[in-house]
């Protein structure tokens, strides 16, 4: 599958079909003049409350970035980035520190201005139509920031009010429930642990039910159990039609959640494809073979050796069969043999090391049809 093809089934949402299959869930069935069912007044647990509003012109991409560049002093933070994210995608933005991910997100959020290029959220330019662009975007910032004057509930109410939603308690209660913060609703923000503060940040980003949600390292400092419940909630939002853009250092999270992934390095996108395609393009099998010796014909596939333990890199299972045949032919007894599949971390490391890149830079800006 190429990057231009729709990522059908690429998202790993556990049920309800792939999010990519129904990106218009909120765009086509709700009039812009009317709130979606249950919006702003849904009882706790009602999934309708999570559905984003009917913003935009129904045809625009969730995010469209064209030729964005930004320099800070001597550092070219972004160097002509093109990117399109379709409605309803669960999209991953990966890269090492300093790659430009947060700068790109800041430009989308209107926190940073681009030197050149343009960016649109659901068709709304982030500079010339910033009010609409910000209404349809929710951002979980990377920094753990909070206002020490207020309680959790006050914080969420205030954030809701900034978007003009002043009677939003039903949705705030639901957010508190999903984020496991109900028992801390009246606690001052200063009294919360780091993980709880992080979850309040998530709540603040979702409080106006934005159709496009950007999560910049949302699970940093959040323990494993709560991370799972947080992802379950985010997956649910994605199934309900919200577009999710995620940056994370936990690559297994990106692999499990994201339908497509862009990898950034030094202000440029160096890989952009569906997660499955990235994994398959860089696929490989690592064989750990414990044996007295290696068949002579396979010496060139040796990656590492520890005594009588050999690590071989194979391209496919067909090659594995040939390896086994060679072992039989040379009457080499196998003490132990284990296999490991390529994961996103290995793909990421290979791309960041510069040994692999996407084959056609023109494809970087392509987006699957939604």
């Amino acid at each position, binding site marked *: 599958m190429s990057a231009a093809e729709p990522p059908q089934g690429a998202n790993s949402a556990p049920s309800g079909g792939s999010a990519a299959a129904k990106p218009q869930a909120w765009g086509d069935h709700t009039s*812009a*003049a*009317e*709130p979606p069912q249950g*919006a*702003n007044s849904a009882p706790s647990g009602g999934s309708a409350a999570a559905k984003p*509003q009917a913003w935009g012109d129904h045809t625009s991409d969730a995010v469209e970035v064209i030729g964005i560049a930004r320099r*800070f002093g001597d550092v070219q933070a972004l160097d002509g980035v093109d990117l399109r994210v379709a409605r309803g995608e669960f999209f991953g933005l990966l890269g090492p520190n300093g790659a430009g991910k947060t700068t790109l997100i*800041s430009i989308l*959020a*209107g*926190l*940073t*201005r681009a030197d050149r290029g343009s960016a649109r959220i659901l068709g709304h330019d982030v500079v010339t139509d*910033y*009010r*609409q662009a*910000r*209404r349809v*975007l929710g*951002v979980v*910032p990377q*920094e753990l*920031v*909070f*206002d*020490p*004057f*207020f309680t959790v509930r*006050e914080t969420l109410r*205030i*954030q*809701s*009010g*900034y*978007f*003009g*939603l*002043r*009677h939003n308690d039903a949705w705030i209660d639901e957010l508190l429930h999903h984020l496991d913060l109900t028992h801390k609703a009246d606690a001052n923000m200063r009294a919360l642990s780091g993980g709880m503060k992080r979850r309040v940040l998530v709540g*603040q980003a979702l409080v*106006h039910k934005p159709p496009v949600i950007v999560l910049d390292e949302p699970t940093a400092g959040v323990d494993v159990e709560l991370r799972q419940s947080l992802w379950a909630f985010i997956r649910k939002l994605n199934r309900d039609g919200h577009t999710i853009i995620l940056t994370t250092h936990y690559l297994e999270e990106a692999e499990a959640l994201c339908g497509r992934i862009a990898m950034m390095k030094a202000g440029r996108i160096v890989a952009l494809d569906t997660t499955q395609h990235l994994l398959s393009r860089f696929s490989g099998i690592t064989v750990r073979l414990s044996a007295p010796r290696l068949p002579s014909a396979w010496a060139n596939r040796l990656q590492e050796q520890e005594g009588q333990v050999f690590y071989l890199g194979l391209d496919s299972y067909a090659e594995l069969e040939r390896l086994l045949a060679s072992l039989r032919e040379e009457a080499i007894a196998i003490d132990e043999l284990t296999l490991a599949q390529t994961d996103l971390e290995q793909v990421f490391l290979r791309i960041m090391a510069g040994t692999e890149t996407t084959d056609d830079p023109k494809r970087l800006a392509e987006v699957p049809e939604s």
Partner: protein
Amino acid sequence: MILQQVRTGGWLTLLHKELLRFWKVSFQTIAAPVLTALLYLLIFSHVLESRVSVFGGQVRYTAFLVPGLVMMSVLQNAFANASSSLIQSKITGNLIFVLLPPLSPLDMYAAYVLGAMTRGLAVGLGVFAVTLVLVPGPLALAHPVVAIAFAVLGSAILGTLGVIAGIWADKFDELAAFQNFLIMPLTFLSGVFYSIHSLPPFWQTLSHFNPFFYMIDGFRYGFFGLSDIAPAISLALVAAAAVILAAVALAMLARGYKLRL
């Protein structure tokens, strides 16, 4: 309707937040400045009541002092509210919660300045109420509308200056410099404690270049019907300053100066 809700009033929440912010620490933000003003009143009136003659002896010095102290409290607290709110939000990083929503520069300006005005006027009212009890003799308001106009405009100007300083300063030290080397001297040298007619000619002339002088002199006219400068001139100058500073603050907000990198 959600859409209509979204299109109205985000700035009202920011204003509400600004009011909650100082109300939650009202001992520090309201009671303490009222007490400070009272201490000024007690000490200066005790020391100078019998030694200083103002407006040709038509007004007792202690009574003369009251509107000056009220206005000084209004101005200083209006400045402190907007500037401290912004610098704290910038340094702790939570200003992002104001920058992410669809608030326009005018929304932000209105909320921060109205919040600052509310605190300034609340402290001013507090000082005035307590002095009514403590200062012997009647303290009539000859032109209450004029007094209110100067108090409102003065608090708006200092609230706006607070916005400008809060945006400009990158650290508390820079804000303190703005406050201690600009706001404080201009306030103290504006005729809070004296009539400029008691000054030598050079200092009298210099006082006319102090914008705070016009605010306090006009406010005092509202109390006694007496002033060093014609109140219409003061009002025009103060209103012009309010418009110019508002334009500067709005331009900074629209540019995202030091807010949106």
